[in-house]
């Protein structure tokens, strides 16, 4: 863990070893903060109003004026509320990064106010949630301090939970009974499978001609299959208290569709184990591995990505985790995609961009990359040309990696509890 210099006398360093775990948490937190107020540099562009900058400086001054008492929660909340309003102004793409940084500072000071003294488990949970809000909606500040804070808080949670968590029964017993139809793949339309092709072979046979294929045998060495097999229990232990964005509603083209921010534990309890009747929930298209570096260690970027022109840092890695029955409507993406299947199976149908005219994309700018047709239940009165479109299909199994060429239309339905990892590259 990265530590900045904190001037202790020798005596104090010894004392650290004898402090009870909870006071030690605050001490650990202070060590990752700049040692003095002068070292806590606040820099923003002129776009940020001097008034809110003043509030931020006040929060910093409060933190250093009384070492045992952090900035007030109220000051932090003002920064959070004001920057939140600016994050919701204009389109997300256009939001100035400065406002996202300001939001992260607000979260930082709120976390510090929660960590003061001997915080209850509820407060530590709220502090973790606040870090996550900053990580999800803010932009990195102070060498990604929120990420480092989350580590400390998580360790504290582990120490705090004295009671042993009831071990979950085998997942299959508690899973929601899924009304999931098992598709039969027509061999004439099956996506071809290939075992461990060489880079050259993949480029010449699939990448250049833009042909979908399922690559077998290239992810079995992932720690996600070996050292830390991904399971509900494992995900709870690594990420249970972390807040993630969940899509609620059967598909994103529905009017009822919405997003909510809940912890991984709440998602598993509410939408995977079905303890409450909440409908379909899907942890979809989320850069979970940036948020939870521990999980990133369990996966590897496929070697074939080096055949692209982009940098490795530009590859977008998304997590797709949900129960059986999640649907991604037929759509196309602007980059090449490797879809790696880790847990469970998915039914996937692929249409070439050449048949786009039979797929009835939406008119609106927002959804022009999405088809209007419900692939497994098409309205042939509204969309009569749809059956003319030729396609390939497959059931993706754990260990498979599906290559989806850029702009290739794809429809995905999970057949059971599923965890996929997608790599968008160019």
């Amino acid at each position, binding site marked *: 863990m990265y530590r900045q210099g904190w001037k202790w006398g020798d005596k104090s360093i010894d004392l650290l070893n004898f402090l009870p775990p909870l006071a030690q948490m605050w001490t650990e937190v202070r060590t990752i903060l700049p040692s003095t107020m002068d070292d806590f540099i606040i820099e923003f562009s002129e776009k940020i*109003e*001097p008034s809110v900058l003043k509030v931020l400086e006040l929060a910093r001054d409060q933190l250093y004026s009384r070492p045992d008492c952090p900035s007030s929660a109220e000051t932090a909340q003002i920064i959070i509320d004001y920057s939140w309003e600016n994050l919701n102004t204009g389109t997300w793409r256009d939001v100035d990064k400065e406002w996202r940084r300001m939001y992260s500072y607000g979260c930082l000071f709120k976390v510090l106010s929660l960590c003061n003294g001997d915080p209850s488990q509820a407060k530590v949970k709220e502090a973790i949630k606040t870090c996550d809000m900053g990580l999800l909606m803010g932009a990195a500040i102070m060498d990604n301090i929120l990420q480092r804070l989350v580590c400390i808080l998580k360790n504290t949670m582990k120490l705090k939970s004295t009671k042993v968590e009831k071990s979950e029964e085998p997942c299959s017993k508690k899973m929601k009974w899924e009304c999931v139809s098992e598709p039969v793949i027509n061999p004439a339309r099956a996506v071809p499978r290939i075992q461990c092709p060489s880079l050259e072979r993949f480029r010449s046979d699939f990448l250049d001609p833009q042909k979908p294929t399922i690559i077998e045998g290239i992810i079995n060495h992932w720690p996600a299959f070996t050292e830390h097999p991904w399971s509900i229990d494992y995900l709870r232990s690594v990420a249970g208290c972390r807040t993630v964005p969940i899509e609620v509603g059967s598909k994103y083209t529905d009017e009822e569709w919405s997003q909510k921010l809940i912890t991984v534990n709440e998602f598993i309890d509410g939408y995977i184990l079905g303890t409450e009747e909440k409908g379909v929930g899907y942890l979809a298209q989320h850069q979970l591995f940036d948020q939870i570096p521990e999980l990133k260690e369990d996966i590897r970027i496929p070697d074939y990505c080096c055949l692209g022109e982009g940098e490795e840092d530009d590859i977008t890695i998304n997590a797709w985790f949900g129960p059986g029955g999640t649907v991604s409507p037929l759509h196309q993406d602007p980059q090449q995609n490797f879809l790696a299947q880790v847990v469970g199976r998915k039914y996937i149908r692929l249409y070439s961009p050449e048949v786009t005219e039979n797929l009835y994309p939406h008119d609106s700018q927002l959804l022009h990359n999405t088809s209007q047709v419900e692939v497994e239940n098409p309205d042939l009165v509204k969309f009569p040309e749809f059956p003319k479109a030729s396609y390939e299909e497959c059931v993706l199994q754990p260990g498979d990696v599906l290559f989806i060429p850029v702009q290739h239309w794809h429809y995905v339905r999970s057949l059971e509890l599923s965890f996929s990892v997608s790599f968008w590259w160019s």
Partner: protein
Amino acid sequence: MNWFGFGFNGFGQIIAADVKCKVSTPVLLSDARGSDCRVSGSWSSRAAVIHTDSGSRVCVSGFLRGSSGQVCVPESEGCTDASISERHVTVSFTRRVECWEIQQAQNRLVWSREQESSGQDVALPLVPGGYVVPRPPFFRPLCAKLCAVSLALGTEHAVLLTASGTVFTWGSGSHGQLGHGHLTSQEEAQVVEALWGVQIAAVSAGGWHSASVSAGGDLYMWGWNESGQLGLPSQSVEEEKLRARRPGDALVLADVHKGSNDLCVDLAVNQAEEKNKDDVFISIQAFPALVDIPQVSEIIRVACGSRHTAAVTGDLYTWGWGSYGQLGHDTERSTDEPALVKYFHSHDMRVRDVVCGLWNTYVSAVPEEPSSHKHTHTE
């Protein structure tokens, strides 16, 4: 006439030199007096046009030049109207309008325009020929055919009222704040067709919501309802209510829900938490909706903050986001149902006008005439 303020006070814009960040019941603004006094608010400051025997000028309270204070703007001597934003104050005079940058050591004139003194008394941001915003290009022309009589500027949209009582909107539509039934943004002014045929008398615009009052005293609102600012059921307000419930209370009259015309009182925590599966929460209302304030017959004026709304009926009603006390109900709770601000009623005051800063509310009120004191509702 007196002006009162409540809500965010982090920079002393309501009560100067007060450490309290939140003022949740109305407080008299000591400097804002007189019948012509106009008040305008930004996030961190408040401006009042004060008329005295020696003339008129703008006084600013709140964040100014790096710290909180209260100061008059000497360059505003003789002004007729003023409007304040985070960095600027826009001042109109009889024959000109100016925009001054007031956060530096010296006030700096960043823009000005000579104008014909119009027969009509239009309020900022309207000026003859167009309107003024506190950033370049400061002046934006408006088509003369529109015959604009009132203009309200929200965070990223505009609501305009014409002489014939028609409402136009333009700007960002992402939260339904344009009232056209979709979420597309519009660069050009477009009629709010759903209000066609209703004569509108006043308009207002908040962060992401809009309001208009008809000549007959009806209130129509549209836009974002995430904190109940449209007076429609809000999921976050409901969740806040559930969190605030104290478990174990056998009889909790904490929340009063309105059924069709009856009041349904939640009798027990258990009952209340069994959420009605038919609960419909409205996040975005893209068409104007009629807002009913029970037992109120006529709404006279309306004002919108970033996420709250205030309406004048002779009394004052507020609803929406309340975390900074901007609803004036002596609480920091938000509400999605219009609620009376008891202060004015219990002090026998008649509310005349209301203006909102982003997170606060400013109200002008006069002592009630004893003979015309109306009991328009029950306490």
